[in-house]
């Protein structure tokens, strides 16, 4: 039973990887990456049942959380080109605008 589930998950992971590599926009790739992470969590759980060692579920738990945070972090990075404060991210460009003016004075 779990072998069937593992095969279904693996086939879907292959389809998702295909979308991740041929996705035309960055957002397609992000979406495929998020779905791939969800299926990684499922695969870890199913493999734990398949080998009758369900201790891997802790790893699956952590992976589910990291997947969510990673997706949000990547989206924020594309949006603001920085992972910290968005207003702080604007300061270096303004400073770069300042420097030539000070040099001329």
């Amino acid at each position, binding site marked *: 039973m779990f072998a069937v589930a593992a095969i279904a*998950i693996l086939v879907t992971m292959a389809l998702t990887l295909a979308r991740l590599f041929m996705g035309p926009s960055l957002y397609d790739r992000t*979406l495929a990456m998020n779905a791939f992470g969800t299926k990684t969590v499922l695969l870890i759980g199913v493999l734990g049942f398949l080998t009758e060692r369900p201790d891997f579920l802790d790893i699956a738990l952590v992976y589910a959380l990291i997947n969510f945070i990673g997706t949000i972090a990547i989206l924020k990075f594309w949006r603001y080109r920085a992972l910290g404060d968005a207003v702080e991210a604007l300061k270096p460009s303004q400073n770069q605008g300042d420097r030539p003016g000070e040099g001329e004075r």
Partner: protein
Amino acid sequence: MDLLLDILSWGFILSGGAFLLIGGLGLIRLPDFYTRMHAAGIIDTLGADLMLMGMVLQAGFTLVTVKLLLIGVFIFITSPTSTHAVANAALVAGLEPKLSTKETKSSLAGVTSVPGESLSTIDKEGASSQS
């Protein structure tokens, strides 16, 4: 009783696998980013949660069940949130749906001018006031 649990968990896991395959096929075959997001939503919520329910029925009343239920709750909360975040980011960045008309384009222009344009105008104003 054992047979009933086995049949139930078989049903859950098989339907979860079917939804996973449907979602993967949709992720490949659908023509547009927003329609592909619909397929990814099927994978994230229905496929994952049905498969986790099947595993819960197999595990019985142990610590494994608690961990599986925790994973299910996390996925149930976080995956619609991240799908919504991806959709919002794509919409704000100006990615248009394939079937967008003039009216939807004008409404999209209202949406896309909220945070990104304001940040870029702040940048431009700061640069122009300093120069």
